């Protein structure tokens, strides 16, 4: 469900790092919790994102959720397919439905993220998987 080569956040985002470029998305678990995803709002290339800060919004039929960046950096690419096909986030969250690519400011930031095994253990340990602490995203 959650590929080995990715790193994970407690807010259910993933990042795959290749050199100084990180590709970011939401996890299989996150899309399953959200249900049918019908809307995605993302930044533009050139925008800056900061670690642990919201950079976009994913909406299912029922719920609004903000997406938090695992790292700080500059957006170098945005997955424009999701504008017309947000349902890709349900069918292929770790592949075709990546959200943004970021040029990392500080590669050390990823050291604090979870491995796939750690993330799976985290999911088992937390009683209410994808529910965050805040309420900003709740309609």
């Amino acid at each position, binding site marked *: 469900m959650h590929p080995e080569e990715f790193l994970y956040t407690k807010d*259910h985002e993933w990042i795959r790092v290749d050199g100084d470029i990180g590709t970011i998305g939401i996890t299989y678990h*996150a899309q399953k919790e959200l249900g049918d995803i*019908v*809307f995605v709002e993302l930044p533009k290339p050139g925008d800056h994102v900061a670690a642990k800060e919201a950079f976009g919004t994913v909406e299912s039929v029922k719920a609004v*959720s903000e997406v*938090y960046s695992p790292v700080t950096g500059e957006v170098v690419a945005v997955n424009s397919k999701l504008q017309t096909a947000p349902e890709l986030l349900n069918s292929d969250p770790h592949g075709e439905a990546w959200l943004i690519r970021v040029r990392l400011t500080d590669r050390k930031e990823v050291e604090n993220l979870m491995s796939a095994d750690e993330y799976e253990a985290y999911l088992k340990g937390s009683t209410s998987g994808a*529910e965050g602490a805040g309420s900003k995203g709740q*309609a």
Partner: protein
Amino acid sequence: MLGCGFTADTEPEDRLTPVPGVALKKTALNAIHRAAGARMVEFGGWEMPVEYSGIVQEHLAVRTAAGLFDVSHMGEIEVKGPQAVTLLQYVTSNDVTRLRVSQAQYSALMHPSGGVVDDCLVHQLGNDHYFLCVNAANTDRDFDWIVQYRRGRAEATEVRNVSEQYSQIALQGPRAAAILSRVTDVNLAELKYYWFRQARCCGVEGLLARTGYTGEDGFEFYFPPAESARVWEQLLEAGRPEGLIPCGLGARNTLRLEAAYPLYGHELDEETTLLEAGLGWICKLEKGDFLGRNVLIEQQQRGVRKRLVGFEMLDRAIARDGYPVWVDGEAVGRVTSGSYAPFLKKNIGLAYVPPGAAAPGREVQIEIRGRRAAARQVALPFYKRART
């Protein structure tokens, strides 16, 4: 990711924050829902399935084939005895004397302020004998409300909260009648919209009504809870060849929104009148005095304070409950229900705006996370099925 819960269509008090020490109520089908992998949420004090296979798929099944809903959380109240008519005429807005035995009507339990305590279906079981279907979260309050107005008016009338004696299953969609005809002897062609009868379905005696909350043809069956698994499973089995699938409250909400049916706590509350909600057709002002009637008459003469309108998003965005509505640079209203509409494939919503701003075709803006997005008012309902 935040807010992955089922929040958008529940009232603040209904949200997934159960009061410590107060157990959620469970319908007789709870174990079956769980075993089938339904996602369960809290709604109106009940643990209910919000979705099985996915809201979009369930919604489309109801529009094109059929869906099966466990709506046993709904409350049932019986009103029986001399002066049952007097009592119901006084506490509800519609005219029960227009009903015949075995007929149902949409109505509202009224507040003296002209607002609404609950909306409900009134079924006439017999002479001086009525059966009300009310919202789950309001059931106890509705019961107390009706009892309170018995005094000095209808003291010989028996009012009973019989909610625990009934499971309720809704079979909805264009294939509903074909499916039901396989498990009942009732000639469904003779059961008209908003009529009901005693019937045996899946071998179980109950009350079978041709009613629903989806905008499609369909049936609601009230029967003893002990028989729930049998009715649920036999209906699913009978409907499988027709494309019947189990559905949750998520699809029920998007279906009712496309049909522009109000949901209590969203379009209706004690601060909103039926005229403001566009439900003048269930206000029978000529029937005699009833709770809130003077307020309705005054509004009819002097005008309403706000008006419920439908809108479609023009900008790429989804409006949600509670978002502010802007007209001519001013925040003047509020979204009461908003969602992606799976059949219409548009982002739609209902909102209250000042009467002067309400006009189909006119643009408004919806404030979404600090930004204003364009929307256009449209005539209601958003969706209307082609009647055959």
